[in-house]
C-alpha cells in the first residue's frame, strides 16, 4: 500500500513499521518548541515532577514572542522563568529581546526546522512548518514537558485529506486566500484530527512564504497538520539556512486519502473571513461595505517580507484613511531589516501606518493594538473568534496583505483594485 508524506515522516520517527491511520505510535521529536505563554506551564510540570535533565538542549527552542516586549509585570515574570530555565539547562535557542521574532516565521528563517522533521510545539500554529514538508503539530504544555524530558511523544497516525489547487492565481490572490477558501469549504472542524495534504499546480508555483501561510491555518480547520510536499522551491529556501541534514518526502501515487478535493484557482478571488469563525469566508466582491477602525498586517500567518512587499505596493504614495489605525508588525528582526533596506518601512511610515516590533501581541488580543467595544478590525492574522483581538463586542475580519493594505487606505474592507490600477 502506498504511503502519504505524513505516514512516511511518522514512520521515519518511530520503531513501528507499516503504519496505518489510527495506529498509536511513540515518535522521536526533532524540535520541541514553546513560547512565553506555554513554556512556563511546561517548566512548572517539569520541576513539579522532580526531573533533573532535558533530553537534548539542542533540540529545545523557546521563543518569547507573545506578550513581549513585556506588557506587564506578570508577563515579565513568565519570561524570566523561561530565561532562567534555559540558562540552567543550557538551552541555547531561547530567543528574546532583539533576537526574537514571531516563532513560526523565525524558525524556518533560521533553518531550525527542516523538511522531513517531526516538530512538536506548545503552540497551535506549529503546523506552519508543514509548508516546508515537515510533520509539525501543536500540543499543550504538559505534552511539551514530556517531550523535553524524553525526546518523545505519542501520536495517533492521522488520516490524510488531499486538496489540489489547479489553474493560475488571480491578481492579488496569495496563500492566505487559498487557505481561507479551503477552510470556508470544509469548515472549522472539517479537518478534525486529520492531516491536510495540499498540492497541485498552483501550489507547486507558490513561494515558501505562501506555503507557510497555508499550512499555518490548517489548525483553523481543526487539522492535526497541514503538509505540502517539499520540492526545488523548498530546497532553494532551506539549503542556505539549514543547520543540519534534511529529507524531502513525497506521497506515493497509490497513497490512501479519505477525501480528495480539487479547486480551480480561476474561481478564487481575494478572500475575507467574517466574524466570528475563520470558516465564514466570502470573496472580496461579496463582502459589501464594512467600515474599519483598525488594520493589522503581521503575525506568523502573514508577517513575512513577501507580505510586506505586497502591502507596500498597495500603500505606496497613499495615506491611511482618517481615523483608522494601521499597525504593521514585521514578523522577525531580519524581515524588519530587509523591509528597511527595500524602503518598505519608509512607504509605511509616510502613509501614516504604525510600525511595531516583531510580536504576536495584537493577534491574540495581548497588547499593541487592542480593540475597544464596538470596534472592527481587518487583520492578516489567523483567528477571528469573539474577543480575539480585544473587547468581546469587537469584530475581526481576516484577509491577506493585499486586501489589508487596500482597506487601510480606504477605511473599509476593499479590494486592492479599488486603490491601484
Amino acid at each position: 500500500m502506498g504511503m502519504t508524506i505524513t505516514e512516511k515522516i511518522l514512520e521515519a520517527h518511530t520503531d513501528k513499521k507499516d503504519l496505518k491511520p489510527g495506529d498509536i505510535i511513540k515518535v522521536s521529536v526533532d524540535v520541541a518548541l514553546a513560547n512565553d505563554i506555554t513554556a512556563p506551564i511546561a517548566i512548572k510540570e517539569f520541576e513539579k515532577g522532580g526531573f533533573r535533565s532535558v533530553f537534548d538542549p539542542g533540540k529545545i527552542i523557546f521563543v518569547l514572542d507573545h506578550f513581549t516586549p513585556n506588557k506587564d509585570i506578570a508577563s515579565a515574570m513568565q519570561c524570566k522563568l523561561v530565561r532562567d530555565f534555559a540558562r540552567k539547562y543550557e538551552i541555547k535557542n531561547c530567543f528574546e529581546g532583539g533576537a526574537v521574532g514571531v516563532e513560526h516565521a523565525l524558525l524556518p528563517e533560521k533553518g531550525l526546522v527542516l523538511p522531513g522533521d517531526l516538530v512538536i510545539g506548545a503552540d497551535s500554529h506549529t503546523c506552519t512548518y508543514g509548508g516546508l514538508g515537515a510533520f509539525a503539530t501543536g500540543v499543550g504544555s504538559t505534552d511539551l514537558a514530556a517531550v523535553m524530558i524524553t525526546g518523545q511523544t505519542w501520536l495517533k497516525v492521522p488520516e490524510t485529506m488531499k486538496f489540489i489547487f489547479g489553474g493560475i492565481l488571480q491578481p492579488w490572490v496569495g496563500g492566505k486566500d487559498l487557505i481561507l477558501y479551503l477552510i470556508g469549504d470544509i469548515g472549522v472542524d472539517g479537518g478534525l484530527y486529520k492531516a491536510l495534504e495540499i498540492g497541485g499546480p498552483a501550489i507547486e508555483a507558490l513561494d515558501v512564504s505562501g506555503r507557510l501561510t497555508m499550512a499555518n491555518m490548517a489548525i483553523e480547520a481543526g487539522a492535526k497538520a497541514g503538509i505540502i510536499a517539499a520540492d526545488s522551491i523548498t530546497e532553494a529556501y532551506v539549503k542556505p539556512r539549514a543547520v543540519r541534514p534534511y529529507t524531502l518526502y513525497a506521497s506515493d501515487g497509490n497513497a490512501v486519502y479519505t477525501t480528495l478535493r480539487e479547486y480551480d484557482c480561476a474561481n478564487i478571488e481575494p478572500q475575507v473571513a467574517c466574524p466570528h469563525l475563520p470558516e465564514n469566508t466570502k470573496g472580496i466582491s461579496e463582502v459589501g461595505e464594512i467600515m474599519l477602525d483598525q488594520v493589522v498586517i503581521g503575525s506568523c500567518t502573514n508577517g513575512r517580507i513577501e507580505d510586506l512587499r505586497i502591502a507596500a505596493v498597495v500603500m505606496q504614495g497613499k495615506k491611511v484613511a482618517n481615523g483608522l489605525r494601521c499597525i504593521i508588525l514585521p514578523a522577525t528582526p531580519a524581515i524588519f531589516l530587509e523591509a528597511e533596506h527595500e524602503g518598505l518601512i519608509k512607504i509605511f511610515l509616510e502613509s501614516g501606518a504604525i510600525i511595531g516590533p516583531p510580536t504576536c501581541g495584537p493577534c491574540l488580543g495581548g497588547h499593541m493594538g487592542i480593540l475597544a467595544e464596538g470596534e472592527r478590525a481587518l487583520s492578516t492574522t489567523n483567528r477571528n473568534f469573539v474577543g480575539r483581538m480585544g473587547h468581546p463586542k469587537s469584530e475581526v475580519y481576516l484577509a491577506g496583505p493585499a486586501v489589508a493594505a487596500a482597506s487601510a487606505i480606504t477605511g473599509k474592507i476593499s479590494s486592492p483594485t479599488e486603490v491601484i490600477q
Partner: protein
Amino acid sequence: MILRGRAFVFGNDIDTDAIIPARYLNTSDPEELKQYCMVDVDPSFPFRVKRGDIIIAGKNFGCGSSREHAPIAIKASGVCCVIAGSFARIFFRNSFNMGLPVFESAEAASSIKEGDMVEVDTDRGIIREITTGKEFKARPIPPFMQELIADGGLMEHIKKHGSM
C-alpha cells in the same frame, strides 16, 4: 467513579479564547484563571458555576489555541467534566493531561438542557439525564489514553516507565 452535576449548555465551536481569553494568560495560576472562565461567552459563568457542575457543548469544543490554561480554568472553576459532540484534538489531549474528564457524545450534547441534572459513570462511559432517565453511551477512550489515566496522568506515566 460517578460524577453528578448541573448542566451548563454551550453551542458549537467553543474556542479556547472563549474558554479563557488570551488577555488573562499572563498567569497560569488556576485560582486567577477560574475568575475568567467562559466570560466572553457568558460573563456570569464564573459567578454561577458551582463545584461538580458539568459543561455540555456541541461540536469542536476547545478549538483554537493550544493553551493548557483552558482545561486548567475549567477544572479550577469546579466543573467535574465536559460532555461535547466532539473535541478539538489539542484540547482533548490537554484535558487528559490536566485530569479533566471529557466525554464525547453528540446525542447527549444535543439532548441535555441548561440546568438539567446529569450523571456520568466514568468507568462505563454512560451519561444519564437524571430528570428524564435517558442514557447515552460516550465514545470509548483509546486504550493508550486509558493507560495514561491508570498511571495518574502523562507525567506520572513517564516517571513510572522512565520513558514515553
